[in-house]
């Protein structure tokens, strides 16, 4: 190609300089959050602000975890996000199997309805969903959260999994049919094992969506014992406006699992995100 090695090297350096400059902007708020979480209350509004705390302490973490019930909220979030993930992945993979491998009456209509669910802004439905939760007696309950989170994640998960299932060669189905395998056997023994990457993708999406969800939980949960991490953090900040050290200790507790999940599975994540967005 054109350009000497010298010039290529210069361009690569320029790339790094620009990327690093942007990277500092991306990272700095996180660094400052972590550093504030290590500061005693007296240093939170210190001038000039310090990126590296003068006397770092984990007192905020201890206080958040034990005396401010964030152990409880963490457990609630784990229960809700795990249950949502398992149920949503099972139900959406079954639906995706039906859409990918069968022709049946109403197929296009049902899939179209699913796509509507993909496009409607979730906030739009919060009023009727609130009335529904009240009618079903699902206010103030973690299982109520799970039901609505599952409903909210099904459309996207089914859509992504159907795309993956359709690419599984039909010859494999046919071989199993010849051996006498029924639909459920093919679904369990063929489609699920072959779709592990896609299943991982939708599992991560579902987990993160329900782990981070805020508005619905804020609307239907009043019992302090049932709070999940996002509403617990927001309400805590509302009640203790200046306890930023504690707020950010709780935030770090909420964010670290997300970062771990993302860094571990980021390949699956990117694959799922760009499916459908990019042609070719």
């Amino acid at each position, binding site marked *: 190609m054109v350009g000497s090695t010298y010039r290529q090297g210069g361009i690569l350096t320029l790339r*790094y300089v620009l990327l690093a400059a942007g990277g500092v902007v991306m990272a700095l708020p996180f660094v400052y959050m972590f550093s504030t979480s290590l500061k005693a209350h007296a240093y939170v*509004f210190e001038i000039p602000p310090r990126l590296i705390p003068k006397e770092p302490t984990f007192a905020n973490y201890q206080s958040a975890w034990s005396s401010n019930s964030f152990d409880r909220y963490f457990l609630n979030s784990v229960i809700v996000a795990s249950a949502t993930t398992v149920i949503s992945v099972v139900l959406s993979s079954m639906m995706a199997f039906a859409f990918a491998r069968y022709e049946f009456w109403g*197929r296009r209509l049902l*899939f179209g309805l699913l796509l509507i*669910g993909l496009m409607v802004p979730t906030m*739009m439905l919060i009023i009727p969903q609130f009335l529904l939760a009240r009618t079903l007696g699902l206010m103030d309950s973690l299982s109520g959260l799970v039901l609505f989170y599952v409903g909210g994640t099904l459309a996207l998960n089914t859509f992504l999994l159907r795309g993956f299932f359709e690419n599984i060669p039909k010859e494999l189905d046919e071989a199993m049919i010849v051996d006498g395998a029924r639909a459920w056997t093919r679904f369990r023994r063929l489609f699920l094992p072959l779709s592990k990457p896609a299943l991982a993708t939708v599992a991560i999406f579902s987990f993160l969506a329900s782990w981070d969800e805020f508005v619905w939980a804020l609307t239907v949960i009043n019992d302090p014992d049932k709070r999940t991490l996002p509403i617990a953090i927001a309400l805590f900040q509302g009640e203790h406006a200046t306890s930023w050290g504690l707020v950010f200790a709780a935030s770090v507790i909420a964010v670290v699992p997300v970062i771990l999940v993302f860094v571990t599975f*980021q390949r699956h994540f990117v694959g799922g995100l760009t499916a*459908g967005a990019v042609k070719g």
Partner: protein
Amino acid sequence: MINSSSAASDSTSPPHDAASPAASRARWLFGERRRPLFTPYLFLAPGFFVFALVMLYPIVRALQISFYEWSILPTAESVFVKFANYERALHDAVFWRGLVNTAAYMVATVPTQIVLGLIVAVLLDTRMPARTFFRVLYYLPVITSWVVVSLLFKYLFSSDAGFVNWVLHDGVGVLDHDVAWLQSRWTALAVVSVLGVWKGVGWSMIIFLAALQTVPKDLHEAAAIDGAGAFRRFRHVSLPAIWPTLLFVTVMLVIGGFNVFISIFLITGGGPAEETEVLLTYMYRQAFDFLDFGYGSSIAFLLTGIVFTLSLLQLRFLRRPTEFRA
């Protein structure tokens, strides 16, 4: 993107055997016929039931509620008021301010995220060490909860001893005084927009990066041999190739912009004096502070209508890249 035409069907017949009538009926209902009657429905039933209950039914219900003076108590009667809630919105100054604020947020954040996301994607679209590191770093804000980053920015931009004021005033010296960012309309919206861009740029970057990687390398090489510089290669080779992706990202960001809620809700709460209210914060307050479900639903439907219309217009007018490049 959506391929609903390629219907899959089992083309092979199961091995034929002369079984009992009951067995053959069972096979007709559940078995491997070309059109098994029940099997697909059995796979669909549990998931679709949940979906219909918590998504489809509420859509219909939302439309219904928006035509009522809705009573919160199950015992009291709700009054059918036709379009009164919609008319009320059109004469409500705060609704219009919310619409303007939402539009301002969109104008500030959508082009910025596209341009910055594209720049970062182009910078990362090469074989280089630490590529994954940068990709993860830029993507971190996307996966971090809105609650956490909203509170974080509220703290960074706070007027008493806030980090940003310190940097701009005492550090770089751009400002000669501390700014009360969250105390007035446009500075508060600026803060929320900065947050929106910071949180969102990683998403458009990831999508653009995936699209750029599908651009054939030999096209670039051919253009380079013809003497095209990096910028011209980007404009005439990469840009047309990723045009559908650009369109997709634009539509998604516009929809996302109209759905701005948590950041406003937690950073300004719509204040001071309803100055920074956006459509969704106003809708939420009408519904859950004033318990006016009918009015809240009509605002939600107006918002959805605007979003759908804008998406369709964008798809219609941005479709052909040749028009854009002319």
